Structure formats: C-alpha cells, structure tokens
C-alpha cells in the first residue's frame, strides 16, 4: 500500500501522530530548557555587539537608565535592583533604591562600591565609560533600542541575562498582543489619518521625525506625523508647522519640558502665524507624559494606546 492509496482519514491520522510527536518533543525540550542549571553560564550578544558571558544568575543588578529600570520592574526583578540612575522615576518605588548619579558620565566609584554582578546600560553616551567598567571586571549589558521591536528584543535580552526567559516571553507576547490589536483597529478603520505635530519648548521647536520612537508610535496609532519626511529629531521653523496644518498638537511634558501645560497651551494658541492651524481652531492640543514616548521601555505601549485614544476621540 503506497501513500497515494491512503484514505483521507488515514492521512489525517498520520499528520496528527506527527504533530503529537513534535508536541511531546517540544514539551520535553521545554522542561529540560527551564531547568535552572542549564541556563548558566549563558553567552549573549548585547546591543553594542559585545559578547558577554554571565556565569551565574545575577543577584545584584544596577540599572543605569530609566528604560532598563522599567523593564526590570515589569519583569518583577526589583528585589535584585541595587542601583539606579537619577532619572529613574517610575514606578514610584524606585526612589527607595540607591542612586548612582546622572546617566553620564557613569560614576564608576559608586558602581563598584555597590558590588553589582550585572550593570544594564543604555549605550549611547554611556558607551565611553563601559570599556573601563568591563576592564574593572564588571559585567555590563548594553540595551539600545531605537524602535519598538528593538525595545521588545531588549526585554528578551534582559530576561535571558537574568535567568527568567519564560517570564520575558510572556511579557513580550502580552505586548505584541496589545500592539497587534491597535494595528488591526487602525487597518480596519476608514477614517482619514489625522496630521500630528509634536511640539515642545516653543522658543526653538524640536520635533521628532522619521526614525524616532515618537514617530513610530504616531504612525502605529494611525496618525500622520507632519515631520515624517525628516530624519531624527529636528529643529524646525514655526512656518513649517503653519504650512503643514496639523489636526492635532501633542505637547510632551515632564523633566525635559517641565512648564505648566496651561501656559504652553496659551503660548501655542497665541503663536504668531498659527491661527489657521486646524488643531488650534478646534482646540486639539494635548499634553502627554513624555516618558511614555521617549523611554524605550514597556510603557511605550501605554503611549501607543494613549495616542490611539486621542486620535479616535469624538470631537
């Protein structure tokens, strides 16, 4: 009897058995994979391309950036956090953890005195201090995210480095689910995309263009960034804003732009040459917490949901 002569039913049976076999294998692999002693030592390539070997499960972690601190808290690793940067302000409990100072230059003396077995750095302007820290025998993991996808990979990296890969996978799938839901809603919607302008500090306007997290979030949430054709954060003239006629103005507030929102709103409303902008005529100016858009942590998804909500408000 050759394969061709099998009935449909028999065929299904073969396929089902195959599936069961693979499934059982998968479970076995998973069980052996989760066994503690198999996880360490682990070799990881971090976002600066450095090969880092972690011999034991880290018990004393320093997070040198707010984004990493937030990831640590979402992964429930806060018991192991022994140091954080001055800028780590979320969640509130971080204030009980010892600070290692500003993000750059890293205070090597402080870091060494805390005896960490893992330092989570943001890279970027911290890169210059990292080789020195590694020379002094400290494991440094660089997590550098310029896109949401990279932020998600960063969560995976930290989860692996800390010996809780399953917890990381779980968090990642939750995040992906929330993002996918919004993507689906946006795709299904037939509304016209609102034109969005992000403006802060109206003395000299800095606004995010293509390649920034903010731009990515606006696009994902179904908006159109008026600076989508520019690269990176750009300093722009007020004329450009008037010409592009945004429907919505977002004002990030927080440490970087601590001004009162009512004052900023007044500044925008009375900005010379902007009276014809739809966002100003329809009073579509929204203050948003900048941390949800600047920080490459899990709260980016909160930012995404907030934007979606703003874009789909009933006027």
């Amino acid at each position: 009897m050759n394969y061709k002569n099998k009935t449909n039913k028999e065929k299904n049976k073969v396929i089902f058995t195959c599936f069961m076999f693979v499934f059982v294998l998968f479970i076995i692999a998973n069980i052996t994979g989760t066994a503690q002693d198999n996880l360490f030592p682990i070799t990881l390539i971090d976002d600066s391309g450095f090969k880092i070997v972690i011999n034991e499960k880290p018990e004393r972690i320093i997070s040198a950036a707010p984004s990493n601190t937030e990831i640590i808290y979402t992964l429930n690793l806060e018991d192991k956090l022994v140091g954080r940067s001055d800028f780590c302000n979320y969640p509130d409990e971080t204030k009980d953890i010892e600070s290692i100072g500003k993000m750059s230059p890293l205070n090597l003396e402080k870091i060494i005195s805390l005896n960490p077995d893992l330092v989570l750095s943001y890279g970027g302007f911290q890169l210059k201090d990292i080789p020195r820290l590694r020379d002094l025998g400290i494991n440094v993991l660089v997590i550098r995210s310029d896109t949401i996808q990279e932020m998600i990979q960063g969560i995976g990296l930290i989860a692996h480095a800390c010996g809780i890969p399953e917890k990381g996978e779980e968090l990642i799938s939750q995040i992906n689910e929330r993002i996918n839901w919004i993507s689906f809603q946006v795709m299904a919607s037939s509304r016209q995309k609102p034109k969005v302008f992000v403006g802060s500090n109206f003395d000299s306007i800095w606004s995010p263009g293509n390649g920034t997290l903010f731009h990515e979030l606006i696009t994902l949430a179904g908006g159109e960034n008026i600076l989508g054709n520019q690269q990176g954060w750009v300093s722009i003239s007020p004329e450009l804003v008037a010409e592009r006629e945004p429907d919505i103005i977002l004002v990030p507030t927080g440490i970087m732009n601590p001004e009162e929102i009512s004052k900023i709103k007044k500044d925008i409303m009375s900005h010379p040459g902007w009276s014809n902008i739809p966002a100003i005529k329809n009073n579509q100016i929204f203050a948003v917490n900048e941390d949800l858009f600047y920080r490459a942590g899990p709260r980016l998804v909160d930012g995404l949901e907030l934007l979606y909500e703003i874009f789909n408000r009933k006027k």
Partner: protein
Amino acid sequence: MKYLTEKNNKYLYGYPNWKYKAFFVLVFGFIAILITGFIGLNFGTISIQPQKILSILWHHNTSDSLGIIIWELRIPRLIMAMLAGMTLAGVGGAFQGILRNPLADPYILGVSAGAALGACTGIALQYITGTYLTNILPIFALIGSFISMFLVYFFSKNKSHLPMTDLLLAGVAVNFFFSALITLLLAVSNRELHSMIFWLMGDLSNSSWQKISIIFLPVFAGSFLLIFSSLELNAMALGEEEALHLGIQTEKLRLRIFVIGSVMIAIVVSFTGLIGFVGLVIPHIARLIVGPDHRIMLPVSALIGAIFLILCDTIARTVLAPTEIPIGAITAIIGAPLFIHLLKRRNENNEY
C-alpha cells in the same frame, strides 16, 4: 645665547640665590603635592576611612572593591589631574613669556579648538557610522590639534620670520574658525550632543593607568625642555629688541616654545578635554608668589597647577556626589576669586 652666562644673568636681573630658592621651592612643592594627593584620595562618592586607605596603599591591595576604587579609579585620576595641571600651567607660563602677553594661555594658539573639533568629529562619526570610536577619540583630538597648530604656524609665518603679533592673531583667528565649526557640528547633532559638551568642559573621569603611561613621558620631557629655555625667556621679558641684543634668536625660541608647548597641550587635552582657566591664571599666581624669574616661576607654576587641579577635581567629584561636575566649571569658580585676591594684595603691598 653665549652672553647669557650665569654671571651676566645675575648682573642683568639681580636674582641672586636662585638655586637655593629653586631647591626650597621644589622640595616644598613635592611635599605639598603629596599632601594634597592624599587629601584628594580621602574624598569621593564612597567615604573610606583614612587608616583603611593607608593600609590599602601599603599592601597594594586590589582584590576587593575598595582596593579597586583606590588603585584603579582614584589614584590614576589624581595623577591625571596632576599631569594636566602641570602641563596647562607650565605651558601657559611659557606662552605668556614668548608672546609677552599676560592674557596668553595654552589655548590661545589654537590647539584647543583643533583638539575639540577633532574629538567632536570623532563623536559625530561614531553615531553616523555606528562604529565604536571612543577608544581612539584621543587620536582624533591629536590630529585636530596638529592641523590647527600647522595652520597657525602657516598663517603667521612671514618668509622666515614668526612675528609675535601675527602668531597671536593667527591663533585667535584659527580658534574662532574652529569654534564656529564646533558650534555648527553641535547644531546639527542631537544624540551625540551630551558627549560633545562634556568633552568640551573637561572630564577626568576616564583616567586610567594606560592613559597616564601614554602622556607621562611627553609631559616630563616637554617640561624639562621648557625649563631649559628659562634664561632665554627671562631675556625676552626685557623686550624683543633687548633679547636680540643679548644674542637670543627670538624667532627660533618662539618657534621652539610654540611647538613643544602645543604638542604637550595637544597630548594632554586629547585625554582630558578642555580644562579652562588653569593655564591662564596659575602662571600669574606663581609670578605673584616667587617673582618673574622663569627658572623658578615655571616649575612653581607647574607645581601650583598640579595642586590646584587635584583640589578642583576633588571638589568636582564630591560636592554633588554621586553626580560629577565638569572640572572646567570648578577651576574658574575657585580660581578667579583667588586670583583677584592675590592681585589686590599685591597692589596694596606694592611689591615689585
């Protein structure tokens, strides 16, 4: 040069006993540096008992974290501050001598702006190309400062002459031009801005034994070469004409000091960033204390520079700990009032 024998020099400038003075000053200076160094060692983000520090020093203990903090972080940093202070103040004094200008500092001949532009270009390239260049930033800075040195020399050279005013003006022009380029670079960059600004304000936090081993030899060799030119600098202090009459080849002297000083500054600055004020005012303080004889004034200037920078760095590390203040901000805040005070006192006492 042949007229500048010991005897003539004494006769001309009336600096008897300079050897005793120099001996006393050097011994006193080294003791002062050791004491300041130990004081500096005691301060930092982490407080460590002095007895503990002494025992770590004595046993050369680098196994635990305190040992690492002392031997790998604090001591290299102290030595780096010392070397930078020596170089800046010593070269500043020599430049003031050859340019006969009290406002001259080691940066006036364009080296600093060149180094800064080199380093900022390196930082910008690092972000643009995505390659890691931090370790070779000093090379960028060095190339930048050599380019600016060459430009200053090229622009001020008049046939075979190197006129003083032209040298100064060319230095100022190159400085302004390079500073404008840096501003341009700062305007078009955003993520790399922070690193650049920190570099521009001076940063000793990255000192290591390796860096010290690189700058040690040039700094000491250069310092000796400068000090050996002291007699000629003394003659220059009388005026260019007078120095010529005494047989000093002022053009050659100027070129020599310019090249030695600039190379020293370029090497130091490429590791520490721009630390301002020290090179301008410390030589004046030295002059107020020991008088204008370069044979004593230059070493004293270097010693005071070293002590001053060690103290400033200690303050920069501790005042806002665990956050560090750029050392360039501290030097001027502390130095300017100190200088004004000394100046006032001199005027009241009507010394020399």
